[in-house]
């Protein structure tokens, strides 16, 4: 039973900088937990503290029920896969994988046998006599994994193992790593800055920003119920549309005033999100591009949850058509959003001056919409998100993070 428990872990450097602040997290036995966040968020530092490669400034770390703060990395019975693989350049693949076993004094026979088994597991049998520099990136990555697997440790730690691979290989390896992890049934902590990777791989994901844990939960939970603006902007690509909106009373219920459009809010949504206290106040409203559909011809006409903008530009992505348009609402420009969008590499604002917000809707790929068209967009009001403009937190009454 290998649970990894972090209790109020902090990493403070001599100059006062805190890379990890009061991180409390419980990684369950056999689960694959992904630590995700932009660079500098402390995820790697946290991982290295678990590994024992970084000193813990304060807090407690338990692996398999044992407090390991003062235990040397070699005695924690965990294995690590490094971002740059860190393969021993002068050793063959077989020697690289078998190194730790050799050190523990197993017989040459046994080492050879176990290396063979591990290599088969990873499809490396043909490469056992090669040196790292003769291998491709993907192959090196697998050797690094083999080196970790052969030790049959209590837990795996992976530090952005796929970030040095090209996009296609990454997608393929993701699946392989996931399958491997399930098959071996070993508790794994996986660090990445790629939120797509996090979403597809993790049993649960933990989002970090500037050393502070933002939210932890199942990927769909985090996706559907982001706890703050940073997470809302960071998780999900293309990112969530965000702008200021006023909450008004309407027809006995509530509506969100977004620019010149008024979007009725279904009562269940208002109740679940506790919007009553936001009546006559301004919130930051969020709606994901895939929840903005092109209005079908057969939809109820006169439904007010509609926007009718002019298309500014389109991006044909093959699987969908991204339609960008202006919304006459105050854009949401908070620190959290800036940190999140920075990660998506987005431009700040399009060149043509427009004071309001820019939204993006994901249409069917062959809808034939072009720049300049006027379109009708249905807002799926059940999928609206609301955030406090001051605190950046979701207005939803929060359960505390596990």
């Amino acid at each position, binding site marked *: 039973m290998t649970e990894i428990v972090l209790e109020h872990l902090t990493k403070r450097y001599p100059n006062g900088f805190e890379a990890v602040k009061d991180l409390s997290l419980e990684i369950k036995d056999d689960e694959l937990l992904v630590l995700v966040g932009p660079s500098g968020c402390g995820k790697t530092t946290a991982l290295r503290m678990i590994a024992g*490669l970084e000193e813990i400034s304060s807090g407690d770390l338990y692996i398999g029920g044992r407090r390991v703060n003062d235990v040397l990395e*070699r005695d924690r019975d965990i294995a*690590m896969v490094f971002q*740059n693989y*860190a393969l*021993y350049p002068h050793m063959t693949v077989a020697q690289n994988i078998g*190194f730790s076993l050799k050190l523990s004094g197993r017989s040459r026979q046994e080492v050879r046998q176990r290396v063979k088994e591990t290599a088969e597991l990873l499809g490396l049998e043909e490469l056992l006599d090669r040196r790292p520099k003769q291998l491709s990136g993907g192959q090196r990555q697998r050797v690094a994994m083999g*080196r970790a697997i052969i030790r049959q440790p209590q837990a795996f730690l992976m530090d952005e193992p796929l970030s040095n691979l090209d996009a296609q290989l990454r997608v393929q390896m993701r699946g392989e790593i996931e399958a491997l992890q399930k098959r071996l049934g070993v508790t794994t902590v996986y660090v990445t800055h790629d939120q797509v990777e996090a979403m597809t791989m993790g049993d649960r994901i933990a989002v970090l920003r500037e050393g502070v844990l933002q939210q932890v939960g199942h990927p769909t939970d985090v996706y559907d119920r982001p706890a703050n603006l940073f997470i809302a902007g960071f998780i999900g690509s293309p990112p969530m549309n965000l702008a200021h909106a006023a909450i008004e009373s309407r027809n006995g219920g509530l509506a969100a005033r977004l620019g010149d459009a008024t979007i009725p809010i279904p009562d269940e949504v208002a109740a679940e999100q506790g919007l009553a206290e936001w009546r006559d106040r301004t919130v930051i409203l969020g709606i994901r591009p895939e929840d903005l559909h092109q209005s079908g011809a057969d939809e109820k006409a006169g439904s007010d949850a509609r926007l009718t903008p002019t298309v500014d530009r389109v991006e044909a992505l093959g699987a969908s058509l991204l339609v960008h348009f202006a919304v006459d609402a105050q854009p949401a420009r908070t620190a959290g959003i800036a940190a999140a969008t920075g990660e998506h590499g987005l431009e700040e604002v399009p060149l043509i001056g427009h004071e309001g917000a820019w939204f993006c809707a994901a249409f069917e790929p062959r809808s034939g919409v072009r720049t300049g068209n006027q379109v009708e967009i249905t807002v799926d009001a059940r999928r609206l998100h609301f955030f406090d403009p001051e605190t950046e937190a979701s207005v939803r009454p929060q359960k505390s993070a596990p």
Partner: protein
Amino acid sequence: MSTATTPAPPIPTPMRLGRRRRVGRTSARVLKLGAIVFFVVLFLTPLYILVVTSFKEAAETDPAHAWSLPSVWTFDAWRQAWTLLSPNLTNTFKLVIPATVISTVLGSLNGFVLSKWRFPGSDIVFTLFLFGMFIPYQAVMIPLTTLLADIHFPDQIPRLAFAHIVYGIPITTLIFRSYYATIPEELMEAARMDRAGMLRSYWSVVLPISAPAFVVTAIWQFTSIWNDFLFAVFIISDPAKWPITVAVNNTAGSLVTPYNLQMSAALLASLPTLVVYILLGRYFMRGLMAGALKG
């Protein structure tokens, strides 16, 4: 010039003397090439004199023939030099080989610890080591000989070797430390995660990839120790045990020694280091630059 005072400042960087081709104005380029060749001639002139004179008969070393090629090429001076100095050559070999080997190994171990297995105060220790490279050795020669005599350290060549080993620690440590700094920290961490301790990490991970640094350091030490004069003059009291540099100075210093013998002696003393330089000059230069500018 390699006495034990090596002219190597302590900032470690790999040397980058890569080539850049540029199209310049032809006349400027011709002038430049001319100047370059002129300096080549200038720089090689002493070598020319050394070689040419050493092959002359004694009679031909007069002013009239000072600069001309020998009319008769003869090994006379060489034979004489050899007879006089071959014991000293042996002395030098007996000195240089152990001293080079030991100081290189020490440098590797020190460089490894100071770059990859640090302890609190590593940098201070390193700086204190480095300072040892710059001191005027005269300052410590007398107490050194006294101390070694007091503890009955084996006299003559062993004492000289000991001195070179000790005072070679700074430069050998510097070269290795710079080199090991280029090993990614991740590699050491992976070894630690594989349960390797310090010695095991050194032996299995670092040492196998240290060959370039060993070559550079060995060549540098070989050259420095071979060419040293200062230490030898203070430490070796028995003329029979003089290394070649002291012997040459003694031979060539005398006013009655004919020029051809002086030159052949000097050349004899320089041959090994020159051969090493010609064959392995690249590594020599790397040792030279171990500590040059920040790139």
